[in-house]
């Protein structure tokens, strides 16, 4: 145990004291902050890509409404259309819109033409269409015999709420509203994505560490003092601690930086309104959905999640997933040695299930208790990504427990398997390794 500790400690200290580690650990949150700043800035800028629009309104409806928009500036003219087509550009307008006369008030369609030298963005087109359409709708309501109240009541907004009380929760307020589903999806996606990154970043680190010792030719000296298994596990633990350190720092720094950036950009009401308008333009379903809820509701729903289950379970799958994959990466690293090129094909069987799990995760978020989700959250090579993705959707406890048992047993199995390959691989030089060869190594007597 003492030796394992010494090895893990060295692996940890060598990495966290490296300049590149310190720089990446600090620069990543700054990079994300910069990204947040840029995307906010660009969105604001992009939203402000104000078009000055000359309107020739033959119907007279749009003129009378005196439309105002944050995004576009409308100016009206009575000049003949031919002249306007020739002059609108010179007079400094981006766009000329011609609204023909509107005769048939029962028509639901009205063709409006535009003149522009540049191609318009969908957002601009939709914005103008919406602006004119709203005015026409208002006009129709005003000029009809329909009571405004009655008209307003035509709008319907259906919310599908879970009315069935969960018997086990005994009258407690139910949590599976739409918002909680959205939050669950986002949370599940984030947790699954973190696992995906952890496996590649830190698993890869373990692999490089193994290769380094082999190429350095120090490994033979090492295993004359410690058992190969100790050396391998020491690496896995040490690098794992590096990962925790880095993630821990990021967990604190990234929110601080992002919130800082937002405050720096002045999160005034005006901006929110603007963003709202931009969001509406973008017309993305998810954003609109979330826009229906206010921040307090979101916080309340967050609080209602079963964190006492989610956090420990996530931590278990985090360690389990890291452990399984980093062991496998260590085994591959020991078999590769000097030639990184031939290592690619050995890495393939490790990378495949990770990518597969990542793809399955998207399906899982759509249907968190479906057959694929259940299978994915049991199979030990995908469960570290799929189970966290399901956690916010209250999967049955027994499924979580079974999955954990499978995960733990698999950790032991893969550590054993990787150890068998590792102990032979690290002493094998100048031999092109095939899968058949790896199979033989597992069978070798020590």
């Amino acid at each position, binding site marked *: 145990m003492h030796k394992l500790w010494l090895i893990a400690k060295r692996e940890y200290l060598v990495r966290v004291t490296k300049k590149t580690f310190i720089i990446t650990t600090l620069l990543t949150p700054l990079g994300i902050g910069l990204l947040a700043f840029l995307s906010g800035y660009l969105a604001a800028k992009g939203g402000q890509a104000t078009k000055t629009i000359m309107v020739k309104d033959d119907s007279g409806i749009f003129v009378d409404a005196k439309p105002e928009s944050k995004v576009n500036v409308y100016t009206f003219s009575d000049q003949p259309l031919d002249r306007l087509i020739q002059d609108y550009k010179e007079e400094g307008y981006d766009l000329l819109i011609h609204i023909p006369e509107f005769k048939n008030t029962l028509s639901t369609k009205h063709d409006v033409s535009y003149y522009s030298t540049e191609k318009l963005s969908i957002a601009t087109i939709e914005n103008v269409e919406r602006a004119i359409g709203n005015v026409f709708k208002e006009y129709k309501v005003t000029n009809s015999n329909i009571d405004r109240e009655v008209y307003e009541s035509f709008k319907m907004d259906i919310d599908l709420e879970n009315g069935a009380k969960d018997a086990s929760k005994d009258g407690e307020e139910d949590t599976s509203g739409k918002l909680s589903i959205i939050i669950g999806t986002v949370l599940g996606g984030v947790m699954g994505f973190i696992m995906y990154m952890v496996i590649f970043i830190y698993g890869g680190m373990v692999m490089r560490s193994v290769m380094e010792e082999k190429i350095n*030719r120090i490994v033979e000296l090492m295993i004359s*003092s410690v058992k190969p298994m100790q050396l391998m596990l020491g690496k896995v633990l040490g690098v794992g601690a590096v990962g925790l350190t880095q993630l821990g720092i990021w967990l604190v720094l990234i929110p601080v930086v992002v919130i800082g950036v937002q405050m720096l950009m002045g999160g005034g009401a005006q901006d929110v309104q603007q963003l709202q308008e931009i969001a509406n333009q973008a017309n993305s379903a998810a954003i609109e959905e979330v826009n229906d809820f206010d921040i307090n509701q979101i916080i309340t729903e967050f609080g209602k999640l079963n964190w006492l289950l989610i956090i420990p379970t996530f931590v278990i799958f985090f360690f389990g997933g890291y452990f399984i994959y980093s062991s496998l990466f260590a085994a591959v690293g020991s078999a590769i040695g000097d030639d990184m090129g031939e290592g690619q094909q050995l890495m393939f069987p490790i990378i495949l299930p990770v990518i597969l799990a990542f793809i399955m995760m998207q399906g899982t978020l759509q249907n968190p208790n479906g057959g694929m989700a259940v299978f994915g959250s049991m199979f030990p090579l995908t469960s570290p990504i799929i189970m966290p993705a399901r956690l916010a959707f209250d999967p049955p406890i027994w499924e979580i427990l079974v999955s954990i048992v499978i995960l733990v047993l698999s950790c032991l199995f893969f550590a054993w398997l990787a150890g068998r390959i590792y102990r032979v691989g690290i002493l094998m030089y100048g031999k092109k390794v095939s899968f058949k060869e790896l199979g033989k190594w597992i069978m070798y007597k*020590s």
Partner: protein
Amino acid sequence: MSILSLRNVVKQYHNHRAVDSVTFDVQKQKIFGLLGPNGAGKTSLIRIITTITGADEGDVIIDGEPLNEYHPSSLGYMPEERGLYKKMKVGDHLMYLAQLKGLSKKEARQKIGHWLKKFDIENWWNKKIEELSKGMQQKIQFIATVVHDPKLIIFDEPFSGLDPINTNLIKEEIRKLRDNGTSIIFSTHRMEQVEEICEDIVLINEGKVILEGNVDEIKHRFKENLYRIEFDGEIQSDFAGFDIQTRTDTSITIKLPQETDGNELIKYAVATGTHIVSFNEILPTLNEIFIKQVEQN
């Protein structure tokens, strides 16, 4: 008393027998040569002794006890392929390896200090290993091998890649270690080095022991009764009746029949008026014995 005894040790790899029923003893406080051409099974044997791999059959006994997991801390091993953690500092590197051999932090610091002082490199503690020259790195490797006062040290081709100055330095240190009670196994295929520092040897080829014993005894065992006389001035006799092997203007090499000794030859030379400058019995070099034995097998 032997520090290490191998009894019928076998190591079988997939399709060949790397170590084939090897038996030999290494005496305490001696420098023992483990010899053999490349691929003879030396490294396989060493890996068994250092517990890196296990023997398939046979017994390995260290200082009276069957080889067990506690032995590595009393063994020192300098592999032929020896690396260093290039990014680490000299002090940290040595501390790490010493602690893995079971020394406490305090002991390790003290012993490393002692060795650095001995090699006159006390100010290297905070130097990064990649900043050191190759010769300097070899000193660090040597210290890492001996720092925990092992009772048995195995050097696998210790002088490969060493310059003459470091070679001599390490040779001296190996002798000093022996004088202080350490037993040493010295594995190599370079015979001239063996002759110089080993007392006992075992010669391995294709996994089998083909020769073992004391160096001087072996040389006598394989001697061919060759004598060389170097002389001054004109030679009076043609040494008729002797089996002349080579002859130059100033020397003559003669093979005597097994039952005669050199005195007969001296008597004859003096009697025939040869001005003898030197008279030597020519013993075979280990290299010659080695090649002959390997070829015979």
